[in-house]
């Protein structure tokens, strides 16, 4: 119930505004990709009718022709985009600081305040991001090792039906592990903003909170995932219809889809900040009693 209440209470104007900020950031990092793709595709296709002849040649063939002619351009663009990804990841850490601050302190969602708060908490959020690798690395190792063992089972036994079931179960476990890792990260940050001690303590507090409220958190994630996943078939239909529409219109529609996605993400973040308010968090005194260091 706590999860549902928190989720429903998160559909607020300020959540939508935060989603706009998220979307703008996402778009800003996408523009180089859009321009880059347009440049390399135009360069590769030249003044030919290659792209217009997809029905004759087959779409796979057309892409292969493009990659073949514009190989260097595609490779350079790929490298540039790969470089953009870590930058975006860091920038998103910054954005999440502004968003969590806004949700926790119920501040007005003005852009300047959002950016200022994001900037203020960025150092500690970045430290928490690094700290969380203490959890993510073991989880990643478990996920990779398990997948390797699974493929070994398939290779040695050939039992595809059993493999399918085990793989599904394993996939669910990996998802739960992923959710656990992200929950620890989120609630560490929330705990940090709620002002009880330093990063290490916030991290420990986040773990303790996730362990104590696993059911609510899992339910909240499912509430987030259902509409989020529903957007994918909608997007597929939109992209399918895009051949008949103007590229600008398609672009605008797809941006609306992106905004919807980040809105759902913002709703989730907002809801996460609401759960601890009705749950017991380990206090600073309790953590001090355990002799936890305040910083890392």
């Amino acid at each position, binding site marked *: 119930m706590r999860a549902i209440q928190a989720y429903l209470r998160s559909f607020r104007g300020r959540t939508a505004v935060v989603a706009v900020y998220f979307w703008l950031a996402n778009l800003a990092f996408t523009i180089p990709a859009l321009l880059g793709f*347009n440049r390399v595709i135009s360069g590769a296709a030249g003044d030919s009718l290659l792209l217009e002849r997809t029905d004759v040649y087959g779409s796979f063939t057309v892409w292969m022709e493009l990659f073949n002619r514009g190989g260097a351009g595609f490779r350079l663009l790929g490298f540039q985009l790969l470089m953009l990804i870590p930058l975006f990841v860091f920038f998103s850490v910054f954005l999440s600081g502004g968003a969590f601050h806004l949700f926790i302190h119920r501040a007005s969602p003005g852009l300047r305040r959002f950016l200022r708060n994001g900037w203020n908490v960025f150092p500690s959020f970045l430290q928490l991001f690094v700290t969380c690798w203490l959890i993510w690395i073991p989880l990643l190792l478990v996920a990779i090792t398990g997948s390797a063992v699974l493929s070994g089972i398939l290779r040695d036994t050939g039992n595809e039906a059993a493999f399918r079931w085990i793989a599904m179960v394993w996939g669910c476990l990996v998802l739960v592990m992923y959710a656990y890792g992200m929950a620890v*990260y989120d609630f560490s940050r929330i705990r940090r903003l709620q002002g009880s001690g330093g990063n290490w303590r916030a991290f420990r507090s986040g773990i303790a909170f996730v362990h104590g409220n696993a059911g609510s958190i899992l339910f909240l994630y499912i509430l987030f995932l259902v509409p989020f996943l529903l957007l994918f078939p909608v997007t597929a239909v939109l992209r399918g219809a895009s051949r008949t529409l103007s590229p600008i219109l398609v672009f605008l529609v797809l941006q609306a889809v992106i905004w919807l996605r980040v809105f759902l993400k913002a709703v989730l973040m907002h809801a996460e900040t609401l759960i601890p308010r009705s749950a017991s968090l380990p206090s600073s005194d309790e953590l001090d009693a355990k002799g936890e260091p305040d910083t890392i």
Partner: protein
Amino acid sequence: MRRAGIAIVCMAFAMVSHLPATGQVENPVGKTTGPEAVVEYSIDAQLLPVNRRLEGTQVLTWRNSTVHPARTLRFHLYYNAFRGPETTFMKESALGRFRLDDTMKSYRYGGIDVLEVRRIGGPDLTERMAFIAPDDGNRQDRTVMEIPLEDPVPPGGTVRLRFRFRLEIPEIFARTGSWEDYFFLGQWFPKIGVFQKDGTWHCHQFHASAEFFADFGKYRVAITLPQSFVVGATGDPVSVTTGNDGRKTHTYVQDRIHDFAWTAWPKFLELRRQAEVPGRDRPVEVVLLLDPRHEAARDRYFRSVIFAMRFLSEKLFPYPYNRITVVDPPLPAMKSGGMEYPTLITAGHCSLIPEGARFTEMVTIHEFGHQYWYGLIASDEFREAWLDEGVNTFFEGEIMEAYFGAGPSLVDLSWLRLGDSESRRLSLRNLPVVEKVNQPSWHFLSSGNYSSHVYSRAAVFIDTLKGYLGKNKLYDFFALYARRYAYRHPTSRDFIDTLKEVTGQDLEWAFNQFINGTSRLDLAVHSISSEKLKGDPVQYRNRVRLVRREGYFPAEVLICLKNDREVRYLWKDRGRWKDLEFIHESPLRAVVIDPEFLIPLDHDLANNSRVVRKSPREHRRRAVNLGFLFQTLLGMLSM
């Protein structure tokens, strides 16, 4: 069929009883054609599954069909390819096709030992056996055995030899071997080479990229093994008997074939269907030996193999044998999948692959097609492999497209759509070097280059001929070629001559470039322009420059004018470039070479068309789609 003290168990080969003449073939080509059998094998094999061993005896009757005396006999001992890492096959495999990865470090090798060979009514020849390596001189290679004869086999004469041999069955690799209690035995018995008209032996070593070539003949093979095994084999089953040790003996016979393979696995699900085939009096029995875990795929196998059989029976000549056995290997034994033997093929299925990826059908159709090109027409796969693999790959595309109708025939998923013919053209991308398609298989740069040329380039070439000659004319040619050369091992020369006979066109120029030569084909629109002329009414001087960057092939050129009118021009002169110029009321909009895409051999399609003014709409649409994918990725990585 009784032995003293042995209870005979009549087994469930119910269909055998009503077949007219077991092991014989229906007249395939409207006449009793084909040379007299050159070989006759009678093999008794005992499988010892626990020891992964096979002990066999073989009586071979060989007829010298040439005008030269045979002073030696040469035999393929293909199984010795798996004897160790230094065999020619294994060394070549390490370079490519059947890559020797880390798992092969603990590989269980195998091999064949000929324990005794004796001329029936003549001397013991065991001591005379010697291993030779005519292709590469590799002393570690024991895949060719030579026996000098004191008394040569005269022209038209026959020799009968009795062999005793033993196989150590390797871990499954390169279409033969065992995995747990699954056995697949291909290329497993001492097999005589082909004594050619010039009095020399055609008996090459087993190469990683080469397949097989042998004379037609009669085979009788009796396989004894524990009764729990379900057996599938080349030919028609004639009896199953049980010995007093509880082991069963399955006997198969078949006339007019040139190889024999079999498989055994206790877990096989054995399914049968009768297939009515155009031009045949009686149905063909289709036997499916299925991994029971693949039961959901049974219809995919049956439908595709029956469709292919009907297609080729209609287009070439009726499938002549009484049955076809399709083997679905278990996943860990997939290295025995995707191979053809007379009246038996191995395919492959994995239920984890979505149904829209039609590899099960593709492999089944491809391997069945080999029943004609490898099995019945039986070209030399060592030296002219394209006549089998290339032609068969072309027909695989034709059958896949006929089977699945419009749309992509190979992969039809929401995110990936790929036609069968399209896929093989793609494999010609980025070849390290263009080689002759028509050359001995082991002469290719690598196994990858072998398959790109012999399968794909040859098939794309035939696809191009289809566009040039028309489908009907090409099919007329294949019908005549197949009927004329069934059981006769035609060569590339026979292929080209028959094509000329049917079409009335000399196509040497095409074969010389793309099959016997190393040319690529690249036709391009170099430039287009429209110049407005002075005067009234308004007119334009339209100029088009076409260039042949590589190779020659006649092509149609579509000239599109801005007023939506079109002009078609057949560009067939052999110059490296061609200028077209005409005055018209409308300026040019675009020029397209080969607008119907009848020349898939053209390796660069982007230069086949040119527009006067670029329309960025399509470019933007693709960029938006790719940008959206990147945006989605960023969204997922948002922390």
